[in-house]
């Protein structure tokens, strides 16, 4: 077998370094998680996964993340459309601010959100007389997860809207469709899969989110404890097997989510490739 010849230098060096660094920093530490949970035995895994408090936290994490990604799908699609198709004062500012959750440290977001929505806060105080409580409830958890996941939807949908050509819309209008028909039958089909892909990414990020949630959640057992917090709690009690098991469940879940969204994005690229 002859070695492939490259014109450019540095293939062996850059690949070797990349694989080495990747193995040391990412692969070996992640493998530890699998190794540890296997060595803890099946009994430990069952024990953790039948613990009611752990189950409640997993339910809250996955449930609130799901609701948050639905909300993000709705507002994300609208925002992406407005930013891409319309010109209005402040459009550029909003377009820049979309990425705020990527850039703002989660702890900063966390204390800002809880201050905003607690009973003395700007928004919380408006709701004192109503029955709606946001801080220290599952609603607050969901709200923080909406904050965290929003840019994933907008940034996945926006380029697809920008790439839409106007001709099919014009054709639809010429053939007598009204704007609503054009939207649902011509515009929505190509942007819906990427919206779902963005929602899946937002869901994946939300399930593991910690910093922006722990402040507003209040961390009440069985009520507002999220799964990542359960890992921290188990670690503080030196229950390594428990922490590892929850970690493994979440890791497998997020890899599956990633695979689904990759599949959706690739399928969409193939179907609507121009």
């Amino acid at each position: 077998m002859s070695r492939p010849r490259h014109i450019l230098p540095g293939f062996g060096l850059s690949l070797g370094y990349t694989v080495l660094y990747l193995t040391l920093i990412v692969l070996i530490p992640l493998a530890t998680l699998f190794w540890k949970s296997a060595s803890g035995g099946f009994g430990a895994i069952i024990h953790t996964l039948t613990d009611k408090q752990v189950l409640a936290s997993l339910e809250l994490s996955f449930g609130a993340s799901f609701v948050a990604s639905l909300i993000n799908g709705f507002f994300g699609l609208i925002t992406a459309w407005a930013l891409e198709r319309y010109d209005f004062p402040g459009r550029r500012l909003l377009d820049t601010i979309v990425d705020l959750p990527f850039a703002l440290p989660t702890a900063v977001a966390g204390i800002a959100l809880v201050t905003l929505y607690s009973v003395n806060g700007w928004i919380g105080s408006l709701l004192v007389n109503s029955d709606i409580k946001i801080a220290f409830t599952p609603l607050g958890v969901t709200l923080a997860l909406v904050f965290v996941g929003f840019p994933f939807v907008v940034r996945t949908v926006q380029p697809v809207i920008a790439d839409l050509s106007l001709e099919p819309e014009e054709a639809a209008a010429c053939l007598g469709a009204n704007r609503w028909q054009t939207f649902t039958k011509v515009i929505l089909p190509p942007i819906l899969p990427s919206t779902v892909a963005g929602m899946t990414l937002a869901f994946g990020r939300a399930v593991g989110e910690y910093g922006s949630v722990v402040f507003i959640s209040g961390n009440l057992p069985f009520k507002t404890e999220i799964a990542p917090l359960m890992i921290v709690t188990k670690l503080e009690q030196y229950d390594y097997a428990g922490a590892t098991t929850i970690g493994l469940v979440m890791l497998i879940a997020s890899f599956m989510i990633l695979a689904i969204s990759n599949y959706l994005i690739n399928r969409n690229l193939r179907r609507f490739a121009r």
Partner: protein
Amino acid sequence: MSAIIEVREALRSAHYPFSRATAEPPWMKWIIISITVAFMGVMFLLPLVLVFIEAFRKGWEGYMATFNDRATMNAVWLTLKVAAISVPLNTFFGIAAAWCVARFKFKGRRLLTVLIELPLWVSPIISGLIFVLLFGSKGLVGPWFKEHDIKIIFALPGIVLSTIFVTFPFVARVLTPQMEAQGQAEEEAAMTLGANGWQMFWRVTLPKIKWGLLYGIILCNARSMGEFGAVSVVSGHIRNKTNTMPLHIEVLYNEYQFVPAFAVASVLAMLALLTLVLKSFISDKR
């Protein structure tokens, strides 16, 4: 004359809402823009504004007093130290990874791209947990390090390691698509004209990728200074020793020292704003 105007008016009122076939009626456009502005205003602008208002609640002096505090300054120094170690390492890796993924075709290239992005999808808590499982006192190699008196967990090395893990893909995933899009004709020309590898890199490749590289470094830096979950698992929260700025914010907040908490938070928020501004500036440049 008046008949013409009448007809024109009638036509205009009939056609006005659909003046362009590919636009929504104005009222629809207005609703969509209002929803966007209201949602983003409440969700993003309000928390951002709140951070600065709370930080200056006791005026400029109250704000500055935070930074005369020893624990706060130690947290700032630790954060700078962590970023100064982890950002260059990940930048170097990012350039190497982008070079081999974007410039060469080889078996396992797609798998490598996916593996590089893995840390983005791992919960920050798990990113800390794995290093505790590895280096903790009951960990895989922890006892060996303990025998040799090397502290990893609850010390600087553990904080740096988990920060590197969390910010691992940032430079690589900005550079790779950019280098793929730019192509390699210039590099090939440099090689045929007799440049060696280093000359090609410094004189051809680096000028080509500089804006993308800068953006990747800025993102990586913002995240490494702001990482909370992963660092909180491995740091042990020892005041003056292993508290980074985000962890210090948590400590201050839990002690009801709201002005100092938001003052430290405002520094990180300014860093985030700077990142966003540079991002939009650089994406115009590219």
